[in-house]
Every structure is written in structure tokens, then in C-alpha cells.
């Protein structure tokens, strides 16, 4: 019951650049990560932002990225460091 992705699934964040209110940060677009947690389903904030109901609800995941995947060495981090973001299913693609 974790929606389209199971824990441990490898995913890629969509490259999309839609105008308007978006909850997936730019620095992760197109990056590959791993689903580490499923939070349940929530109204779509990108529709709630325009006064809509946000329905149907979307599955929300915590996705883990290595710092190297994200910054390709250009940052102040140690080799094993990571970053996570909470990403709705509509922003993820299976790998």
C-alpha cells in the first residue's frame, strides 16, 4: 500500500519546468535517487495553490540522493553525505 513506488525503488525526478507553484526543488530535477519512505497520500499542493481541491490525492515519498549525484563534487560535504526531499508521485519516474 505504498502507491506506485515501493521502499528501495530507484527513481528519477522529472526534468519538467512547469510555470506556477511547484513543490519539487530545482536542484533535484533530473537527479536519480532512492525511495526511503512513504508518507501516505495528500492533496496536490500544486493545485491547492490555485484554490482547487487538490484531489485526487497524491502519494508522497521521501527520496534520498547522494550529495555526489546532486552536486557532482561541487559542495562542502563528505563522501557519504546525502540529501532527501519529500516528492509527490507526479514528479517521479521509475528507473
Amino acid at each position, binding site marked *: 500500500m505504498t502507491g506506485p513506488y515501493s521502499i528501495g525503488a530507484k527513481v528519477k525526478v522529472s526534468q519538467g*519546468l512547469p510555470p*506556477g*507553484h511547484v513543490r519539487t526543488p*530545482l536542484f533535484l530535477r533530473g537527479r536519480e535517487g532512492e525511495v526511503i519512505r512513504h508518507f501516505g497520500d495528500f492533496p496536490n499542493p500544486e493545485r*491547492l*495553490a*490555485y*484554490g482547487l481541491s*487538490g484531489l485526487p490525492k497524491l502519494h508522497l515519498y521521501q527520496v534520498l540522493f547522494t550529495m555526489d549525484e546532486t552536486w557532482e563534487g561541487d559542495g562542502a560535504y563528505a563522501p557519504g553525505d546525502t540529501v532527501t526531499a519529500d516528492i509527490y508521485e507526479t514528479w517521479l519516474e521509475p528507473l
Partner: protein
Amino acid sequence: MTERAISDLGGLPGGPIDTAEHEPTLSERRVDAMMMLLRAKPRSFWATDENRRTIEGLEPKTYAESAYYERWVLAMRGLLIEKGVLSETEIEAKLSEVRARHAEAGQ
């Protein structure tokens, strides 16, 4: 080419963090309180995401140069008009009155 939303800051360069503590001012507390009251039940005039969308819609210069609660009060103004709670005309009239009152009090 990629359009970065003005609020989407992750990974941008920046200077050192100023960790000085700040006790919220009365104006800041009032903005915070009003925002909560207007957004929460029973009024529910707008969703948190509408507030975010409105803040992101501020002119980039305004977003960059304004303080946190300044952005909030500007968003509140926009949303109160958008939702038909207040009109732009009455806000401008009241604002003139407040400025005048303040100028007088400051004499």
C-alpha cells in the same frame, strides 16, 4: 531555459549564516497571528499553498529585498483582495489614513 522560482533557493551560493537571535516585534507577531486566523478554520479563506504561490508571485526585487513578515503582509493583502474579503480601494484609503495618523502622532 530553466526558470528558477524566486523562492527556490537550494544550492545557490550565499554568505555566512547570521545566527543572532531575534525577538519578534509587535508588528511581526500581529502579521503572524492574522495569517493564522485567516487561514485556519472556521474562516479558511485560503490554503497555505495559496499563500506560498502569492509570495512566489511577488516581484523578484520585492522578494529579495523584503523581510520575512513583510512578504507575508504583502501576500495577505493580495489574497484578501483575491478572495473578495477586502477591496483594493478600501485598503488604499485605510492605508492613507494610517500614514496620516502616524505622521501626526510623530510631530
